[in-house]
């Protein structure tokens, strides 16, 4: 059974009103355990709405979302859904519930009703995962954006969800903060084998994923392994998306008659260029 199964999902804001907006239109896909998926789409493509639907923060207008077989609309079992799917949002300041880092990370496990020793162990583990153990007793206010976002990730990790959803979690960060967070996510994936769904509009970040799902005007337009999805510059452009820079370079060269093949990462580009001579 898929860990998350999205079936014919439609979500409409302000239904039957003048300002009705169809955010998601008949979207279906399955997420298997251990996958690393990048969900990309331009502004208003419905990707952030999708994040809130995956753990039942919003209820589908039509269709359903199943988490380990449990529909997110089942209010009696919603707690199980939230335990399985942890969402990290865009603004780290709006995810901190308190002013001491360890208290903030403990918030999730406390809600699970765990004994105090277990909570303590999880806080240690989660902070270790994001590389912030040294700040345990500190306050988040003096930290950089990247560090704050890593604390927010630790807060979700401490719940030990099966799936980690990152809703544009790097969008408000500077390049260094972005890299910090991306490296952290990759490390967690390697160490814990966690399923990750990363919502982003940065194509470079999407290239780290195994599979890319692209949304345009609420519909899925691409659902492919990340390499083939991101190498197709023209198709991405038609959906208002930018391919990663190396892919664009290869595309530009191809138009001038230099065929390099399917290229997504800087390393591939470098190797292909070296083979030219």
């Amino acid at each position, binding site marked *: 059974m898929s860990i998350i199964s999205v079936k014919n999902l439609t979500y409409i804001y302000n239904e039957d009103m003048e300002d009705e907006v169809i955010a998601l239109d008949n979207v279906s896909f399955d997420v298997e355990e251990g996958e690393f998926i990048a969900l990309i789409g331009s502004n208003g493509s419905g990707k952030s709405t999708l994040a809130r639907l995956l753990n039942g*923060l919003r209820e589908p207008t039509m269709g359903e979302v199943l988490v380990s077989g449990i529909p997110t609309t089942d209010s009696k079992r919603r707690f199980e859904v939230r335990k399985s799917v942890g969402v990290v949002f865009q603004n780290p300041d*709006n995810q901190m519930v308190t002013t001491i880092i360890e208290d903030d990370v403990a918030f999730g496990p*406390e809600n699970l009703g765990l004994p105090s020793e277990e909570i303590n162990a999880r806080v240690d583990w989660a902070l270790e995962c994001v590389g912030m153990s040294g700040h345990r007793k500190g306050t988040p206010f003096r930290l950089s954006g990247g560090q704050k976002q890593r604390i927010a990730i630790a807060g979700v990790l401490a719940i030990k969800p099966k799936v980690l959803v990152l809703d544009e979690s790097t969008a408000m960060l500077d390049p260094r903060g972005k890299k910090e967070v991306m490296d952290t996510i990759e490390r967690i994936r390697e160490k814990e084998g966690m399923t990750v769904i990363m919502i982003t509009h940065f194509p470079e970040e999407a290239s780290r994923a195994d599979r890319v799902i692209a949304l345009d005007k609420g519909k899925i337009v691409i659902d492919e392994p990340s390499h083939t999805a991101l190498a197709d510059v023209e198709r991405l452009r038609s959906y208002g998306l930018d391919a990663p820079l190396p892919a664009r370079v290869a595309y530009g060269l191809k138009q001038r008659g230099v065929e390099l093949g399917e290229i997504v990462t800087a390393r591939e580009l470098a190797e292909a260029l070296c083979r030219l001579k």
Partner: protein
Amino acid sequence: MKDISFGQVYPVQSPVHRMDARTKLIITIAYVVMLFFASSFIVFGIIAFALLLVIFASRVPLLKVLRSIRFIIFLLIFTFIITVLLNKGMGAEAEIATYGYYLSFGPFTICGTGLLNAGKLSTRLILIVVGPTMLTLTTTPMELTEAIAYLLAPLKLLRVPVHEFAMIMSLALRLIPTIMEETDKIMNAQKARGASFDHGNIFKRAAALIPVLVPLFVNSLKRSEDISDAMESRCYRGAKGRTKMKKLRYRVSDIFAYIVVAVFLFFILLTAYNWWNWAWVSMITFV
């Protein structure tokens, strides 16, 4: 970021920081009660001295604590002036006989009794702000939430949502610096468009704040929605099934603190009422 001492913990280790949050909360309440019963400068001095001892024990820099006064500086000046000007004391002759002066112009007067009363009022105001600041400087919002929920627990019988109430308090404290920062940002944005906040009379200045308050209010609503989403995503469902990492625990020192404060409170009440008409009590309450 601006340094805001109100509502934020000063992160050091000290006996005051380690004290049980419930003890600190109750002591703070007792402290405020004492201030209302204190009526002479000597008694205020005794309370201030006790507070000073607590501040030193907490290892929070004195300046940091005193900085909380600047939030009420205008209130302080305003109440002082009004109290002085409107207090007629014991009347012109008696005032001149006691203090040697009595100035009056129109409906206003300046006299010894008025100055004395205004001084006491200001002292009380300052102490009322500084004391509770010590509570927030030495107690984490989570501990405070727990303590408030604990003290209000009897209200649960009346179906009052005690946990939720305490959580709201704690979130409010948590958001003070974030909202301050945001106010700053919006003010700068409005300044960049030519708004001015330090020109004109008080009404013009107040009117100039409207373009700041409106976006601030709208943003706060949006922010509260985001925070509630984040909290729910982290399995929050109120007090139901919730446990704590750090449990509140009374130590021997807490019992000791309670006794000391009880004795102190009794002493202050004694100075206020002087049940047994002791001479030394009237001496220290004279000024």
